[in-house]
C-alpha cells in the first residue's frame, strides 16, 4: 500500500510542477482545465528551427506551433491555402503570394510578407547551417547565398524574393516548377517572428510560432508543454487545451505507459507489440497509410551491378521477394506490399498508380530463377543487403527478405544481411558509394507530390540518389513534368518517368509503411496525417 501512495504522490508532484494535469483542481493560466493530453515524443536531433528540422519528432512540434502558406489536409494530403489568400503565376516561374489578413504570431506580432521572406532567406543562407536549405534551391539567387561547388558566398539574401507590401511578396524561381506552391506546406517554409532573429538563443529555448499551440515550457531532452493558443486566428483551432510531449527512449516503454494509463497517446507502436495491440487497446488503435515507402537500392557505381543485363538480375530479385508473406508475418499488415514507387496517400489524382510495377513486384520463384540466370547470375554469387541495425526493426525484414530470396533461388547462401551499427555510419557508407550490393532505402515524403517520390531519389545526382542511378529519359520527363502547368498532365509525365524506373528496376519497391497510434480512453477523434504525425488539434479529451 505504501508503494501506491508514494508513487501517486510522485506523479502528482511531477504534474503540478509543470502544470496541473488532473491532480487536484488547479487551473492553468490560460483558462485551460484538465483537457490536456500527454503524448509520446523523441528527442529532436537538430535545433528546433523550421529549416533545420528534417525528422518526424521535431516536425511534430513544428506542425503544432507553425502554420504555413499552405497546409496539407490531414485526411487527403491535398495542399490547401492556409495563410495564403492566393498564390498566382502565369508561367510557373514567377509567383505572387498574397497573405490573408489577421494572422499574428502568438506573441502578438503580425505575420507579414517580411516574416516569410526573412525566414526563407535565413533558411537558404549557408552561414546558418540549415540542413533543409536545399528546399530553397529553386528560388533565384540560391547559388549565391548557398554556393554548393565550394565557391564563396556572395550574397546574404535571395534575389528571387521581393516584398511588395505588408501582405504581398513575389517569388522568382531559377527554373519552371509548376508544383512549387504545393511544396510550401513543408515546415521549412514557415514564417518566423522578429524574436527569432533578435534573440535567437532565447527563441530556441522556447520557440514562438503562429500555430494553434504555443509552447509553455520546454525542458530539452525530457518534456515540452504546449497549450492551446486562445487567440489563434485559423479555423483549425485546437479542440483540446493542450498537449504535453514526453520524451521516451524506447517506444516499448511508451506503449507500457499507455497500457498503465500514464500516457494518453503513443504513436509508432513498436513492431514487437503489433501482435497483441488489438487485444490490449481494442478500437483505440489506428493503423493508416503514411507517405513512406521502403525500397532496395542498387550500387550503380559498381560495374558488377551495372552491366547490360543487370536489369534482369534486379527484376529477378524483385520477383524472389514474397512481399505478402513478409508484411503479414513480420509487420502484421502494418505495411502494404508496394506495387509502385510512390505512396497510396497521394491518391490516384496525385500520381499513385496501383499495380504500376505489374508482374515485376509479384512473387514467382521460377520466374525469379530464370531472370537471374538470364542476367548472368548474382554478382559474386551472393547479394549482401546492407542496412542499419540500430532502429526500425530493419534486421527482421532484411532477414526475411533474404530468406525469401534464398528459398526462391534454392540456394542457402544467395542472400545475406549486412548490418551496419548506426544510422550515421550507414549513411556514411551509402553516400560515399562504399556499399557493395543492394542497400535499404526508406523514403518519407516531404510533401505529398509524386515529384517528391521520384526526383530526389532517381534524378541524376539528386540528393537522395545514393545508388547513382542515371537515365537521360527519366531526367527529361521529370524536367518536362516540373515545367507543366496543368497538374493532371504533370502527374501523367511523372508516371511516364516512373515507368522508366520500373523498366530499369532502378530500385526494388518493397512496401508502403503505415503510421500507427494507440490512445487512452480519455481521447477521441485521434487521426494521423499522411506524415504519420497525430493531428493534435482535432483530438478531443474527456
Amino acid at each position, binding site marked *: 500500500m505504501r*508503494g*501506491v501512495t*508514494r*508513487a501517486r*504522490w*510522485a*506523479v502528482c*508532484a*511531477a504534474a503540478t*510542477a509543470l502544470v496541473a494535469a488532473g491532480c487536484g483542481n488547479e487551473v492553468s493560466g490560460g483558462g485551460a482545465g484538465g483537457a490536456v493530453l500527454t503524448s509520446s515524443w523523441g*528527442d529532436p*536531433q*537538430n*535545433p528546433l528551427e523550421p529549416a533545420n528540422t*528534417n*525528422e518526424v519528432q521535431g516536425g511534430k512540434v513544428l506542425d503544432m506551433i507553425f502554420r504555413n502558406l499552405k497546409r496539407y489536409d490531414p485526411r487527403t494530403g491535398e495542399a490547401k491555402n492556409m495563410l495564403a489568400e492566393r498564390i498566382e503565376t502565369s508561367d510557373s516561374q514567377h509567383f505572387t503570394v498574397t497573405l490573408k489578413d489577421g494572422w499574428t504570431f502568438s506573441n502578438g506580432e503580425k505575420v507579414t510578407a517580411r516574416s516569410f521572406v526573412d525566414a526563407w532567406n535565413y533558411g537558404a543562407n*549557408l*552561414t546558418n*547551417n*540549415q*540542413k533543409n536549405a536545399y528546399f530553397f534551391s529553386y528560388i533565384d539567387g540560391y547559388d549565391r547565398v*548557398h*554556393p*554548393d561547388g*565550394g565557391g564563396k558566398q556572395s550574397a546574404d539574401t535571395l534575389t528571387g524574393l521581393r516584398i511588395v507590401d505588408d501582405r504581398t511578396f513575389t517569388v522568382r524561381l531559377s527554373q519552371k516548377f509548376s508544383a512549387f506552391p504545393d511544396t510550401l506546406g513543408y515546415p521549412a517554409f514557415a514564417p518566423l517572428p522578429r524574436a527569432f532573429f533578435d534573440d535567437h538563443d532565447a527563441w*530556441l529555448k522556447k520557440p514562438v510560432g503562429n500555430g494553434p499551440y504555443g509552447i509553455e515550457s520546454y*525542458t*530539452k*531532452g*525530457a*518534456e515540452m508543454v504546449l497549450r492551446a493558443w486562445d487567440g489563434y486566428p485559423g479555423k483549425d483551432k485546437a479542440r483540446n487545451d493542450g498537449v504535453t510531449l*514526453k*520524451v*521516451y*527512449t*524506447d517506444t516499448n*516503454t*511508451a506503449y*507500457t*505507459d499507455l*497500457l*498503465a*494509463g*500514464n500516457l494518453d497517446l503513443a504513436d509508432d507502436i513498436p513492431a514487437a507489440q503489433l501482435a497483441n495491440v488489438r487485444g490490449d487497446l481494442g478500437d483505440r488503435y489506428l493503423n493508416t497509410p503514411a507517405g513512406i515507402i521502403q525500397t532496395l537500392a542498387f550500387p550503380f557505381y559498381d560495374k558488377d551491378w551495372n552491366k547490360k543485363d543487370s536489369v534482369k538480375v534486379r527484376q529477378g530479385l524483385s520477383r524472389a521477394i514474397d512481399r505478402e508473406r513478409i508484411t503479414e508475418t513480420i509487420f502484421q499488415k502494418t505495411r502494404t506490399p508496394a506495387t509502385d514507387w510512390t505512396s497510396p496517400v497521394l491518391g490516384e489524382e496525385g500520381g499513385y498508380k496501383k499495380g504500376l510495377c505489374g508482374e515485376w513486384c509479384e512473387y514467382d520463384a521460377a520466374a525469379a530463377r530464370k531472370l537471374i540466370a538470364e542476367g548472368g547470375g548474382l554478382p559474386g554469387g551472393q547479394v549482401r543487403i546492407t542496412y542499419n541495425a*540500430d*532502429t526500425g526493426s530493419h534486421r527482421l525484414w532484411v532477414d526475411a527478405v533474404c530468406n525469401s530470396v534464398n528459398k526462391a533461388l534454392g540456394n542457402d547462401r544467395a542472400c545475406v544481411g549486412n548490418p551496419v551499427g*548506426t*544510422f*550515421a*555510419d550507414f*549513411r*556514411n557508407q551509402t*553516400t560515399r558509394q562504399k556499399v557493395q550490393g543492394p542497400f535499404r*532505402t*526508406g*523514403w*518519407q515524403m516531404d510533401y505529398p507530390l509524386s515529384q517528391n517520390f521520384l526526383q*530526389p531519389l532517381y534524378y541524376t545526382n539528386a*540528393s*537522395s540518389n545514393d545508388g547513382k542511378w542515371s537515365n537521360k529519359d527519366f531526367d527529361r520527363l521529370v524536367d518536362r513534368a516540373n515545367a507543366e502547368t496543368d497538374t493532371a498532365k504533370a502527374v501523367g509525365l511523372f508516371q511516364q518517368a516512373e515507368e522508366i524506373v520500373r523498366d530499369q528496376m532502378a530500385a526494388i519497391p518493397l512496401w508502403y509503411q503505415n503510421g500507427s497510434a494507440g490512445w487512452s480512453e480519455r481521447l477521441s477523434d485521434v487521426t494521423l496525417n499522411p506524415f504519420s504525425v497525430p493531428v493534435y488539434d482535432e483530438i478531443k479529451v474527456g
Partner: protein
Amino acid sequence: MGRHVVRRLFQMVPVFVGATLLIFLMVNVMGDPVAGLCGERQCDAATTARLREEFGLDQPVWRQYLTYLGNVLTGDFGTAFDGRPVTELMATAFPVTVRLTVVAILFEVVVGITLGVVTGLRRGRPVDTGVLVLTLVVVSVPTFVTGLLLQLLLGVEWGWIRPSVSSEAGFGELIVPGLVLASVSLAYVTRLTRTSLAENRSSDHVRTALAKGLPRRRIVTRHLLRNSLIPVVTFIGTDIGALMGGAIVTERIFNIHGVGYQLYQGILRQNTQTVVGFVTVLVLVFLAANLLVDLLYAVLDPRIRHV
C-alpha cells in the same frame, strides 16, 4: 596516508588520458557523424563542409584530440548536435544516474549484506538454501527480463508504480529501477558476504572472542563482519562505476533520462563530444571509487597502512 593519496591521484593522469584517447579513437573510427544528420538525404556539400568545420571534424584526429583535451581541462566538453553544451547534458543526466546508483548501492549494502550475514551464520539451514537458490535465479536471469517483468507486473497489472520514471526522477520513483539495477550485484554481495563470513567464523580471533564470553552481537559486528567485509567493499567500490555506466538497459526500460540514455543517444548519433565527455566523467568516477575503496581498507583493517 596523504602521500599515498597524492601518488594515487598522479597515477590517475595517464589512466585518464589513455581512456579518453581510446574512446575518442573508437568513436572516430565509426565514421563521419555528419552523414547521419540529414536523414535519408545527403546533406549538400557546402553545409556538410560548414558543419564539419564547426564540429572540428575537418582537422586530423590527433589535433582534434588535443583540442578536445585542452577544452576539457578548461571545463568545456563541447556541444552536442542539437546545439546543447555537453556540460548541460551532464548537469541533467548525472544527478539522475547518481540517485539511481545510490538507490542501487543502498539495496546492495542493506539487503545484500544482511542476507549474507544471515545465511553465513546459518549455513546449511533452510534460510541459507532458500537464499542461495534465490540468488542463483537472480544471477542467471538477465537484467532486462527482470526489469520488463517487474515493470509489467507492478506497473501495468497491479498498478503499484508508474512503468516509466518522470523527468524529475525522485528517489521514490527510482526504488524499483534501483532494485532491478542492483539485483545481480545484490546476489553477488550476498554470496560474497556469506562465504567470507563463513571462512572467518572458524578463525582464531573469533574463537578467542567466543571463549572470552563476549556477547554474540558484538562478536558478529566487531570481530566477524568487520574482517569479512574487505572483499565485499572491494566489490561494491568497483560496482559504483559499473552501475553508473551500465545502467543503459535499466534506464531504457524505465525511461530514465540519465547517463545511459545520453550515452545511447550519443552513440546512435555518433556524437563524439557527448560520448567521450560522459565516458571521461565515468572514468573519473571509477578511479575515485577505487581510491575510496583503498582508503576504506585501512579503516576496516588497521593492519593495512598506506605509506
